[in-house]
Structures are given as C-alpha cells and as structure tokens.
C-alpha cells in the first residue's frame, strides 16, 4: 500500500492536501493547536516566531480574497514573509506550465506554497515535485477538497458542541460542486459524527454520497429536523444559468434557511456558512444575523486553524 503523500514515514503531517485519509489523532492535534493560537489574539504582541525567516507563497490560480487574506494573516502572525502571487493574471496567462511556475518559485527559496487551483489534484502535483523541505497547503482545488475550511468548520463545531460522537450535522445546498462539503464530510466521518445528512435538490446532491455513509434528503424540513449543526453552502451563481436549478427564488423557497425552517432543528442548533453568503438565496438575513449564526466566529477561528496547519507541517520533515 502506498503511503498517504501528506504524511512522512513517522505518520506526521508534512503537507495538507485533503482531509481524506488523515487519522483522527492528526485532526484533533490540529484543532488543539488552533486553540493555542486563538489565544495569541489576546496578547500585547500578536505574533509568534515559529516561521521566522520562512517564505510562504500564496499561489492563487483562482480568485479568492477571503481565503487568501486569512492565509496571509495566519502566516504573518507566525512571522513568515508572505508573497502573494495572483497567478491567474501572470505567468499562467503567458502559457507557463504549473510545474515550471513552481520550479521558478522554488528557485526563489520558497518554504511553503498555499495553493488554490480550479483543477482537482493540482496541489498534489506540486507536492510531488517540490523539494523535500517545501510544504504545500491546499487552499481549494476544483471540486475536490478545501481541507482548511473543513478543519475550521470542525473547530467551530467542537467549540460550540464539544463532543462529535453525539451529533447530527446537516449540510445544505449545492453539494455536487462543493469542495467544502467533501472536506466536511470526510472530517465529520473521521471524527465520529454518527449522522451526516446532505440536503438539497436531486440535481445538486450526488447520489454516491450514500456510499460515504451520508443520508441524502431532498426535503429541507426532513433534512434539518433535530440537527445540532446546519452547514449552509453558497449557491454558486454561475451555476444558476444551467439546467440545474429553475431560479434563485425557487431555490430559496425550497432550501433557503429561514427562521421558520430553522425551528425544525434543535433549539440550540448552530448555523454555519463558509461565506460569502448570498442573502435571500440560500440563507435569510434574519438567520445569517441571528443568535444561532456562528458565521463570523468561523472566520476568526479560520485564522487560528490556518496558523495551526502551517506551523504543524513546517515543523515536520519529509
């Protein structure tokens, strides 16, 4: 059996490419470490020296202001030098291949690449071809995975609910296109969540989820009934024109989270969303801004989780 390319021979994390296949202990260790970093915000000096003298390259082949910014803040709080490359507008547009780009950046003494790419598997390709001391973090690849979002979602759930082994978690919306959903399902499964539900119209919820132990629900009320955690996904506007959905209004009527629908979940259920939110499409404003919403704490936790991921992989050798 081949080794998971994210782990070294001691089973330590050296790249974060996907949550799939990572042991539960590794996930818990990252969440524990993130807890330490969260408290760095309360210090007079909000910076720790773990990545001092290291260069972190943010390689965003696909646009994302929020994720790139949180990675940048996380790396700077760890004292790294951060270089942001908007690849979509530079070398790739001139026809340079992905591996040539990486070879050039490696020659500039990069220590870590944070990669977002529209092609699934691009971060794996980079991890296989970079020097042994270089670490890679997947910041979202195609429809495949968005592991740091998955981990920050797990941190949020643990923060509010403590024990994963008693929970019912409903993931609602455009699951077929969502790398967040995939990473969340992998993480929830590894952490022992007994009931995971995927809720949405047939066109947006893939049938093969059942094989991953996920309960598929096409009825919203049935899907969130008794849930402890509701993860709403962004309805990607670019999909609206296709045959997948009749209209945004129709989607909101059936699957948009309103106070009325939320009342079917547990009274202390939390509402999450990876952002950016489309008010009135997948979530009603009163829910997004309501007392059960933890959407903004997710953003804060995201920085601590990304600090935990970067410092964990940077401290482990290939």
């Amino acid at each position: 059996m081949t080794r998971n390319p994210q782990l070294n021979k001691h089973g330590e994390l050296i790249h974060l490419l996907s949550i799939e296949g990572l042991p539960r202990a590794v996930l818990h260790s990252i969440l524990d470490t993130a807890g330490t970093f969260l408290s760095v915000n309360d210090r007079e000096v909000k910076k720790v020296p773990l990545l001092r003298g290291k260069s972190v390259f943010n390689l965003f082949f696909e646009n994302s202001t929020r994720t790139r910014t949180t990675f940048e803040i996380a790396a700077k709080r760890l004292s790294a030098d951060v270089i942001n490359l908007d690849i979509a507008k530079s070398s790739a547009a001139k026809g340079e291949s992905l591996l040539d780009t990486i070879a050039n950046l490696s020659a500039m003494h990069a220590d870590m690449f944070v990669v977002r790419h529209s092609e699934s598997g691009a971060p794996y390709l980079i991890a296989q071809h970079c020097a042994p001391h270089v670490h890679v973090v997947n910041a979202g690849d195609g429809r495949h995975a968005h592991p740091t979002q998955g981990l920050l979602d797990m941190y949020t759930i643990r923060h509010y609910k403590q024990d994963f082994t008693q929970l019912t978690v409903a993931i609602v919306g455009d699951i077929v296109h969502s790398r967040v959903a995939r990473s969340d399902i992998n993480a929830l499964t590894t952490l022992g969540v007994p009931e995971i539900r995927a809720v949405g119209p047939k066109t947006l919820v893939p049938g093969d989820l059942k094989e991953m132990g996920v309960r598929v629900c096409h009825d919203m009320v049935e899907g969130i009934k008794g849930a402890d955690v509701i993860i709403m996904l962004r309805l990607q506007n670019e999909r609206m024109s296709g045959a997948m959905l009749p209209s945004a209004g129709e989607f909101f009527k059936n699957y948009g989270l309103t106070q009325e629908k939320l009342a079917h979940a547990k009274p202390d259920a939390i509402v999450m969303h990876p952002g950016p939110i489309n008010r009135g499409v997948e979530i009603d404003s009163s829910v997004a801004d309501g007392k059960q919403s933890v959407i903004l704490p997710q953003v804060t936790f995201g920085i601590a989780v990304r600090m935990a991921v970067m410092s964990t992989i940077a401290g482990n050798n290939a």
Partner: protein
Amino acid sequence: MSTLHLNAEALYLDLLSGVRGLLQHDAVLVGIWSGGAWLAERLQHDLKLAGEPGVISSALHRDDFGSKGLASADPTKLPFEIEGKPIVLIDDVLYTGRTTRAVINELFDFGRPASVTLAVLVDRGGRELPIQPAYSAARIALPREHQLRLARDDEGRFSFDIKEGT
C-alpha cells in the same frame, strides 16, 4: 549505573521556603508547563497568595521547532496583567536553560514585567545559555542521556521520574 534517590516532597519544602524568601511586594508566580505549573499551583496555596498562578508554555518560542516540530503543551494562561509586576518563574528541572529562554520570550509577548526571577526544584547543570536560578532546592549532576522529570500522583504528591536514553 548509578541509582539516584531524590525525595521530591522533601525538596518541595525547601523550594517553598526558598520562594518565600524571593517574594517581593506584588510578586506573582508563573509555573512552566507541566512540572513547574504543578509546583506553582501548590506554592500559591501554601504561600497563601490570592488568585491563581500563571502557567506558561515554551512551545511557541522553542529553538528546536525546526528539528522537532511543534511541541504539545497546554497553552500559556496568565490570569493577571504582568506589566510592571515582579515575576517568579517556577520550574521542576533546570538543565540547558533553553526552555527558560523560550518562556522569557513568551512572557514578554504579554507585556514588560518589573523583573523575572527563576526558582527550581532541581538544577542538574549542563547549561548551554547564561541562565542561573535565584533558588534551587537541589543541585545534582546527571549524564546527558538521562531524562529527569517531575511526576504527580492522584493525591497531588510529587516524585521524580528518571529515564535513561532519549
């Protein structure tokens, strides 16, 4: 092989009187995780100091991060302002001085204390940095490959755990 008998409970009583002598007005105790934190907790009680002692971790400032990775430890928790305070750092075993250096850096991320003093249960020599304790209850010499750590049982009694090799 040498057999070493260190009575941690007896040494604790010496440490108690040593720390009492180091306490200035307004001083606060900060224990280095994990053994030093246990000691600070008991000292705080026995010295009848108000509130909780601080706990400090070296993890975020260690100089062996590059080779050993991130150390697992409880996070630093200082339940008081340190600005302008005399700090008494407590540790179980003082060896190379590298942990002490790391926690002093950690401490200064929270403010500027008036002074920092170090009191330890055992000083085993082998210093690699210019760090000396203001008080040590015992001074011993141990071969490099020996590991010496404080242990605490369910009743809160201290003993020493000595291991050969790393």
